[in-house]
Every structure is written in structure tokens, then in C-alpha cells.
């Protein structure tokens, strides 16, 4: 008993080259993903040092963070954004790196593109200069967000210095009620364990609910590991994983496929793995969730009552509730339901995939966005956009009063023209509700699932999607 290894340990051990003089491990990162914001300086450092990209075939590039979603003609109207995009193009050319450029039909948010192309594979290590790299863990990969100097280290050596993490297993068992989605599961986990709860850990998600999740749902969960403080998050690879990957451009095919699948399967954590920590979550307790504060762990059921500062257990917690409510302009002791919204955003690497738009389209057909609400839908990649357009999903969104945009990060971090204005309140399917995150220093964000964003857009206020869309199997949580 207890000699089993977790997937994390198997992958780590397989990729560890040696111990460095400062005690950290030199770890091979098999797949390196880059985008326009955190890579140009790294290429600059590489040039300054006179180094080359050591394994150019293992770095993949795309543009997402600052790309405009409402214009397609270059040069773009923001000269700084335009320069950054041109710089990436040049670096990819100079160093012979595969680049999913705007003209390829494959561009998109880096965490959507990797899986879509089959670059993200089980048992591999992946890194990107972006904290939501954990998304790729949905495939049983160990994936880290890194800083710019580490981007340089990967370009030059395909390795980086890193300290090993502990592993926390999170079981989600039972049956999710109707109207409750993967996004609600991860918001619930973060609210339970806290935004710093995962520091020093990789999260392994499992249990009935996660086993039954599609790959897109697993990606939504792994994506927000970082909001829970964990540096990485993953799900063990299984038939669902292999089915998703089969036939993707960068996956083996023909005779090699079966052997590869057997190899991938063996990476899954052994049944007798002893974890550093185990947390059990009951699916029945997960409700459609919303955040009320300025940290992703300040969240609860949509039927919750906005907390009073006095409810904080420590003076520091009381202070953080006070600060959050003051910023959010919410009244303690009142229901969050009914809070008026100004903007609705469906998109991001958390919830900008085909299944997200498909699910919302099922319910918004024949409905209209409320007067005075600006609603935008931003596909996570050009391929997602195309698949949606093939199914007529874009038209359903347009008919309902949404702007249907081009692929990119858009209002998730607002480095492009999609920004909140003043203290506008946004119902958002993204992952961060920090102060000023959506582009205005006083802008406000409430995180929720895409269907909850749609419900809020239609009602013009924070609403329970189960009521708005008559998901009657369950009244309130």
C-alpha cells in the first residue's frame, strides 16, 4: 500500500535533469507556448546573450492578449498593439517557430489553441508566460505559468529552474444539479479553499463528476487553479482525453496512435497514490456561483446575501470584506440577485469554447439582451468562431443583441479596446475580478458561468439562470 505515484510525480521525475546548485530542479519543459505580451523581451535577452532557440520545434506562438476583436485589417488602430504583433511575427520568423498568426485561421487564446491543435498532450510538461497555463492540465499534462526570464530560459535551453510541488487531490462526487456547470464547480472549490489555499500545491481533480466531464469542462476547472493559489492543476488522462485528441494535427496517427494512447494511459496516478492532502466536495452542494468581491475566492451561491464586514473571522478578513464591498459598491446584508449590470462578457480561456457558446445559444434563442446592457461574445479562437458560425450560433447571439467578435482575450484583461468605462459592472465568464482588471481603474467584475452571464444580460441584473431559463428540476440551492 502507498507505493503508487501520482501523475505529477511521474511526469516530474521523467522531466527532471538534475539538481541545481541552489537546490532547485532543472526541469525539461517539453512544450513552450508564447504570446505577444511576455515574449518580446525574452527574445531580446536571447539576442543580447547571443543565444539561439535550442528546440524551435517545441515552441508554439499565437497572438491573443492585445489583439483587437472588432477590426481585422492591419495595421491596427493601436500602434503599440500593432508593434507587439509585428514583433512576435518577426521573432517567430527569425527563430523558426511555428506561429498561429491571424491569417492562419488557427489563431486564438494560447490556452484554447494548444488543445485544439493537439499540441497539449498527456504526460508532458508545458509552460507559457501566462498564469492560466494550468488549463492544459486537463489533459494530464503538468503546465506552469512563468515569468519573462523563464521564457528566455526555455527558448535557450528548453528547461527551467523550479522547486517541486506537493499534490492535493480534490474529489468532486455526486450529481451536479441542472444549471450548474464546471465554472460553478471551480468557483465553489476556490471559495472553499481560498485564493491562497493552493500555494505550494498542484491540484489533481477527480471523482465522479470530473470523470464524467467533457474535455472542455475539465479545461474550465484546471484553468482557474491559479485563482486558488495552485501553480498547476490537472486531471488524469482517460478515454475522454484520448477521444478528444484523436485526429488533431499535432497528435500521432495511424499505427503510432494506439501505442501512444497506452503510453499516455500509464501516466495516470496509481490507485494507491498517497496524496499530500485530499479534499472531498459534494456536487449537490454546488450552486450557480457568483463572486461579490475583488478576489476570486470572494464568491458564493447566486442566492447568497452580500456579507457584512463583521462576519469576517479575523480583523484582516473584516478589512478585506470592507475594502471589497466599498470597491464593488455593494450593500452588506442584501441579496446579490437583482444587482444591476452594465456589461455582459462571454469569452476568455476559462469559458470561450464551442460548448460554452452552444449551451448559451440553446437558451437565448428568441430572447433579448436588456436595454442599456452592452453584451459581447468573444470566441476563444478562430476555430471556435468558425465552428460556432457553422452551427449558426453566432446568429443566435446577434439576434439576442450580443456583439459577436473575433477571437482573443478581449475584456478578460482589457489590453485591447474592449474595456469597461468608469465604474461599470460586468457579468463576466472570465477568471479574475481584481480591481481594474477589465480596463477601467474603477470597473467592477462579477465572475460566473456563461449561462449565468446570459441570464444577467437578459434580465439586466444578476439573476439565477435556473429561474430565467426555467430549469425547473431544482428551485433554489
Amino acid at each position, binding site marked *: 500500500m502507498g507505493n503508487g505515484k501520482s501523475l505529477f510525480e511521474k511526469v516530474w521525475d521523467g522531466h527532471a*535533469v538534475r539538481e541545481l546548485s541552489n537546490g532547485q530542479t532543472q526541469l525539461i519543459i517539453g512544450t513552450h507556448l508564447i504570446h505577444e505580451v511576455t515574449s518580446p523581451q525574452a527574445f531580446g535577452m536571447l539576442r543580447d546573450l547571443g543565444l539561439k532557440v*535550442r528546440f524551435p520545434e517545441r515552441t508554439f506562438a499565437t497572438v491573443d492578449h492585445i489583439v483587437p476583436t472588432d477590426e481585422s485589417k492591419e495595421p491596427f488602430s493601436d500602434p503599440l498593439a500593432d508593434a507587439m504583433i509585428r514583433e512576435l511575427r518577426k521573432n517567430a520568423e527569425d527563430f523558426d517557430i511555428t506561429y498561429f498568426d491571424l491569417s492562419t485561421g488557427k489563431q486564438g487564446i494560447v490556452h484554447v489553441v494548444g488543445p485544439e491543435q493537439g499540441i497539449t498532450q498527456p504526460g508532458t510538461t508545458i509552460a507559457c508566460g501566462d498564469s492560466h497555463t494550468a488549463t492544459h492540465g486537463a489533459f494530464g499534462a503538468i503546465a506552469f505559468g512563468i515569468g519573462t526570464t523563464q521564457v528566455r530560459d526555455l527558448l535557450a535551453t528548453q528547461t527551467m529552474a523550479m522547486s517541486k510541488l506537493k499534490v492535493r487531490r480534490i474529489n468532486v462526487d455526486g450529481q451536479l444539479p441542472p444549471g450548474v456547470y464546471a465554472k460553478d464547480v471551480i468557483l465553489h472549490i476556490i471559495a472553499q479553499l481560498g485564493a491562497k489555499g493552493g500555494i505550494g500545491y498542484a491540484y489533481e481533480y477527480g471523482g465522479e463528476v470530473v470523470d464524467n466531464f467533457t474535455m472542455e469542462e475539465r479545461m474550465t476547472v484546471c484553468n482557474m487553479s491559479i485563482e486558488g493559489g495552485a501553480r498547476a492543476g490537472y486531471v488524469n488522462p482517460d478515454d475522454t482525453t484520448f477521444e478528444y485528441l484523436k485526429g488533431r494535427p499535432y497528435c500521432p496517427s495511424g499505427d503510432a496512435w494506439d501505442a501512444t494512447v497506452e503510453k499516455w494511459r500509464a501516466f495516470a496516478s496509481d490507485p494507491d497514490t498517497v496524496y499530500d492532502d485530499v479534499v472531498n466536495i459534494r456536487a449537490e452542494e454546488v450552486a450557480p456561483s457568483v463572486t461579490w468581491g475583488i478576489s476570486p475566492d470572494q464568491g458564493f451561491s447566486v442566492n447568497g446575501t452580500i456579507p457584512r464586514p463583521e462576519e469576517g473571522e479575523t480583523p484582516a478578513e473584516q478589512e478585506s470584506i470592507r475594502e471589497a464591498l466599498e470597491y464593488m459598491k455593494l450593500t452588506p446584508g442584501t441579496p446579490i440577485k437583482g444587482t444591476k449590470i452594465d456589461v455582459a462578457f462571454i469569452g476568455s480561456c476559462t469559458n470561450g469554447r464551442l460548448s460554452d457558446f452552444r449551451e448559451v445559444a440553446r437558451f437565448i434563442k428568441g430572447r433579448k439582451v436588456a436595454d442599456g446592457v452592452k453584451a459581447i461574445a468573444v470566441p476563444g479562437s478562430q476555430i471556435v468562431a468558425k465552428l460556432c458560425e457553422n452551427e449558426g450560433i453566432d446568429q443566435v447571439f446577434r439576434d439576442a443583441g450580443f456583439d459577436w467578435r473575433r477571437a482573443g482575450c478581449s475584456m478578460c484583461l482589457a489590453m485591447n479596446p474592449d474595456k469597461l468605462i468608469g465604474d461599470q459592472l460586468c457579468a463576466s465568464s472570465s477568471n479574475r475580478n481584481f480591481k481594474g482588471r477589465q480596463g477601467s481603474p474603477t470597473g467592477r467584475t462579477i465572475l460566473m458561468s456563461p449561462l449565468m452571464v446570459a441570464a444577467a444580460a437578459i434580465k439586466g441584473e444578476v439573476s439565477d439562470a435556473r429561474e430565467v431559463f426555467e430549469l425547473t428540476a431544482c428551485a433554489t440551492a
Partner: protein
Amino acid sequence: MALDKITTVQGTAVHVPGSDVDTDRIIPARFMKCVTFDGLGGYLFYDVRKHEDGSDKEHPLNNPRFKNATVLVAGSNFGCGSSREHAPQAIYRYGFRALIAESFAEIFFGNCTTLGIPCVVATGDDIKVLAAAVEADPALAVTVDVEQCRVFFGDQSFTVHVPDSARDSLISGRWDPIADLLESMDDVSARMQELGYSA
């Protein structure tokens, strides 16, 4: 690749008071739209140094008395918040070569060490004494001795804390991991093949 051995930093100092100075304050997000870190020095502490019209607010860095300071003296939890490397880059490019504070945020500390910027930890009382001395005489020579873990100024000095791994890396000229990483490229290539990443 030989890096400078950073054993001491000598210069003049400026005190920027306050605790929990986060990386957003050190370099606001909008200045991250750039392809090199080169120009970042000019935006250091931008929103606390400048009015909306670009004119100066009152801030130690705007005070001509401290114009050429190379040692930044700060409070506790300096560099907290986002992990953006743009923050230590802005500090370095502004001209600072060493930081003395009551404590540093972990990621920021790591980023600084990698760039060869020693971050040394002093007690609040020692920082007060140093700040007062610098205020009285901005030309006062301040020496941050990384090797001996001491700060010298005028005829005074105090002990500072520097974590072993950072101290060793700095004084042996191995503060940037790239040299270490490049050493084992033969092993890396072999392992890349074994793992099926490269042919």
C-alpha cells in the same frame, strides 16, 4: 558565461516609505504594452509620481536631492501582487542596483535575484536610522555588502539578512540561472529524445 560577482553595491540612497507597495504601483499595467523593457525606467512608480497631466507629484524620486541614488530603501512586503517581471526591470532601468527593505514579496525577490539586484532585509529600526541619515545628507555613501550581510553608511553599519541561496548566487556570479541551465545541454538533448519531444 561569466557574470559579475555581486559582492557589494556602493552608491547613494533614497527612502521610499510605506508597506505593501505592489508591483502595479511599481509599474502600472498599461506600460506593459512594450516590446522591450528598455523604456520602463521612466515609468517607475508612475501613478504615485505623476499627476494625470504628467506633472510631478511630491515623491522622493522627484526630489532632485536624491537624483542619482542607486540604493532603494523601502518598507515591508515590497513588490507584492502580480508576478510581472516588468517591476524589477523598471527598478533596474531607473538606475537602482540594490534594495534594502523590511521584507520582500517572494516572487518579486526571486525576479530581482535573477536580474542581479540584491534585496537585503533590515529591521524597521535600522531602516529608520538609515533613512534619517540619508535625509540629512543625500550625498552620504551607502554600501550594501552582500558578502558580509551588512550595510555601511558614514561611520555606522547594521546587519542585514540575505537568504543563503540568493547570497551564494550573487557573490559567485551565478545569479542568472541561464549559465547553470546551459551547462547540461547534452543531457537535455538526450532526455528530449527519450521523452519523444525531439527526433
